[in-house]
C-alpha cells in the first residue's frame, strides 16, 4: 500500500561526482516489495520546488526499516535534497508503480541486469532479490566516466560485473550493448534501466527475449491521476490505448510500450 511519511535521514553520502546515496528510515519501508518500484519525494516544505521528484528504490532493509536511494544532483529538486543532513526528515510518498518481476526468472537460470547511469540503482535491490532466489546474475553497467561510477563492488559481490564508460576512463570504453556482444553474454532474462537510447538498443537486439525495461518520464502526481506520464502501446501506435509509467510501470515487458 502506498503511504506518505516523513522519513528520517540516517545516512547521506556523496559516492561519486554529484552522485548521492541517501538512506531513510520509517514504517513505509514495510510496504516495499518489488525491486524497481519508486518513491516520490517532496524535498522542501514550500513550493520551491513545488512538485515531488520520482527516485527509484535502490536497496530495501526491512530489518532496520530503512531503504536507500541513489540519485544524481541535477536541478533544483535534487540540489535541495542533497542538502539534507542526518536526522532531518524527507517527505516520502511510496512505494509507487510496478517493479521488475522477480518471478520472471527461475532458480538456476541466468539474469542479465543492464543499467545506464542513474538507471543503475534499482538494479541493486533487484540483483539482491534474484540472488536470494538462486538466480545467477550478470551485471553490465554503463557510466559516463570514471567519476560517476558507483556500487561496482556491491554488484560484484552478487555476480559478475562489467563496467563500461563512454569516455573509456574506467572499465571498458563504449556502451553496455558493446560489452554484451563482446563478452558473449548469454542469459534467460534481461532486466534493464537507463536512458532511452540504451533501452532502444536493447529492445532492437533482444525483443524476442524475456526482457523487462524501466522507463522514465516527467511526472505530476506519480500515482496515475494526472495523465502526465503516458506512453503508447506497440500494438496500437496511433490509437487511444496507453499505459501510465507511474502506475502501470515504470517497468514494462519489452515490446509492450513504444519507447
Amino acid at each position, binding site marked *: 500500500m502506498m503511504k506518505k511519511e516523513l522519513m528520517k535521514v540516517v545516512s547521506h553520502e556523496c559516492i561519486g561526482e554529484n552522485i548521492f546515496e541517501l538512506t531513510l528510515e520509517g514504517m513505509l519501508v514495510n510496504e516495499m516489495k518489488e525491486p524497481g518500484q519508486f518513491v516520490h519525494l517532496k524535498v522542501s516544505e514550500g513550493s520551491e520546488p513545488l512538485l515531488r521528484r520520482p527516485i527509484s528504490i535502490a536497496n530495501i532493509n526491512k530489518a532496520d526499516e530503512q531503504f536507500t536511494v541513489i540519485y544524481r544532483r541535477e536541478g533544483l529538486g535534487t540540489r535541495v535534497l542533497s542538502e539534507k543532513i542526518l536526522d532531518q526528515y524527507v517527505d516520502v510518498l511510496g512505494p509507487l508503480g510496478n517493479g521488475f518481476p522477480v518471478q520472471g526468472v527461475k532458480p538456476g537460470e541466468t539474469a542479465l541486469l543492464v543499467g545506464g547511469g542513474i538507471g543503475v540503482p534499482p538494479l541493486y535491490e533487484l540483483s539482491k532479490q534474484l540472488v536470494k532466489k538462486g538466480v545467477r546474475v550478470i551485471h553490465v553497467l554503463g557510466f559516463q566516466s570514471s567519476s560517476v561510477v558507483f556500487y561496482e563492488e556491491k554488484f560484484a559481490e552478487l555476480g559478475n560485473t562489467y563496467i563500461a564508460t563512454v569516455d573509456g576512463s574506467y572499465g571498458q570504453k563504449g556502451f553496455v550493448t558493446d560489452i554484451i556482444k563482446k563478452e558473449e553474454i548469454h542469459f534467460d532474462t534481461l532486466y534493464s534501466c537507463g536512458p532511452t537510447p540504451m533501452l532502444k538498443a536493447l529492445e532492437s537486439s533482444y525483443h524476442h527475449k524475456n526482457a523487462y525495461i524501466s522507463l522514465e518520464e516527467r511526472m505530476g502526481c506519480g500515482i496515475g491521476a494526472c495523465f502526465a506520464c503516458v*506512453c503508447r502501446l506497440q500494438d496500437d501506435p496511433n490509437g487511444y490505448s496507453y499505459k501510465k509509467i507511474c502506475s502501470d510501470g515504470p517497468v514494462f515487458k519489452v515490446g509492450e510500450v513504444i519507447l
Partner: protein
Amino acid sequence: MNRLHVKLPGLDLKNPIMPASGCFGFGKEYSQVFNLSELGAIMIKATTLEPRFGNPTPRVAETTSGMLNAIGLQNPGLQKVLSEELPWLEQFIVPIIANVAGSQVDDYVEVAKEISKARNVHALELNISCPNVKTGGIAFGTIPEIAADLTKRVKEVSEVPVYVKLSPNVSNIVEMAKAIEHAGADGLTMINTLVGMRLDLRTGKPILANKTGGLSGPAIKPVAIRMIYEVSQAVSIPIIGMGGVQSAEDVLEYFYAGASAVAVGTANFVDPYICPTIINKLPALLDKYGFDHISECQGRSWK
C-alpha cells in the same frame, strides 16, 4: 449546524472543498488514499465525445512555484465515462461535477446532454478554457459571444445546472462572465490555467512537446483572487474558485474574494491528502477568525 455546509445550484455540499478537474482523474487513484465521501464534490477529468489520447510527452514542466501542463484532454470518451467511471464513483456519497469539453459546439451539447443524465452528476462544468488543445477550447473561452452561445446551447439540453469555467487569458474577465451569466449559466468556476512556456537550457527548445502549457499552482493565485474579486461583484451567480489553493488559509482568501466553494488542483500532486487535510483544518480556522459559518466569509473583501 454544519459550519462548512454550502448550497449551490444543483450542489448540496457537506463542505466547499473539491478536487479540480484534471487533477484527480476519475477518483480511483485517490480512493486508495482516503475515502472520497469526505469531499464536498468531485470535478472529474474533462470528458469529450470521443476518446482522446492527448498530447505527446513531456506533458508537464515545473516553473517557480507553479507547473505547466499540456495533457491535451486525454480521456476515455463519453461512453466509457458513462459506463465505467461514473458508476464506479456511485459507491461514494459525493456529488460529481462533470467537466465537459469539445472541439465544436455540437460536441459539447452531445456530451452535456448524455452526461447530465448520470445519476451522480449533479452539475456540469463547461471547460471553454483549456489552453492545450488545438481546436476549440480556448476560442470558446476568449470571445464572449461564442461563450454565451455555447452556454445557451448546453443549458437547453442539460438536466443539471451548468457552471462555466473561465479562462484567465482574457483582456476583460468581467465582460466574459457577464455574457455567460446572461446566457443562463447557473454558476462560474475560475480560473483555468494561464498559458505559459518553459525552455530547456541545453536545447533551447520548449520542454513540453506541445510547446505551450497551462500554468497552475501558487504562482497564479493572485491573478485568480483578483479575477474572482472583480467577477463576484459583477454577477449574481455563484463562483467556485481555484488556482494555487494549498491550505485552509487559501480557502478563506478565496471566500473573501467572492468564491462560494473552492477547488484544489495542482496541490493534489504535491500532497494526495490535501483535500481532506484542508477540510479538517477549516473549522479551527473559522474559530481563529471568529466565523460561525464559512459562508460568512464570502465576498468579505468587497462587502
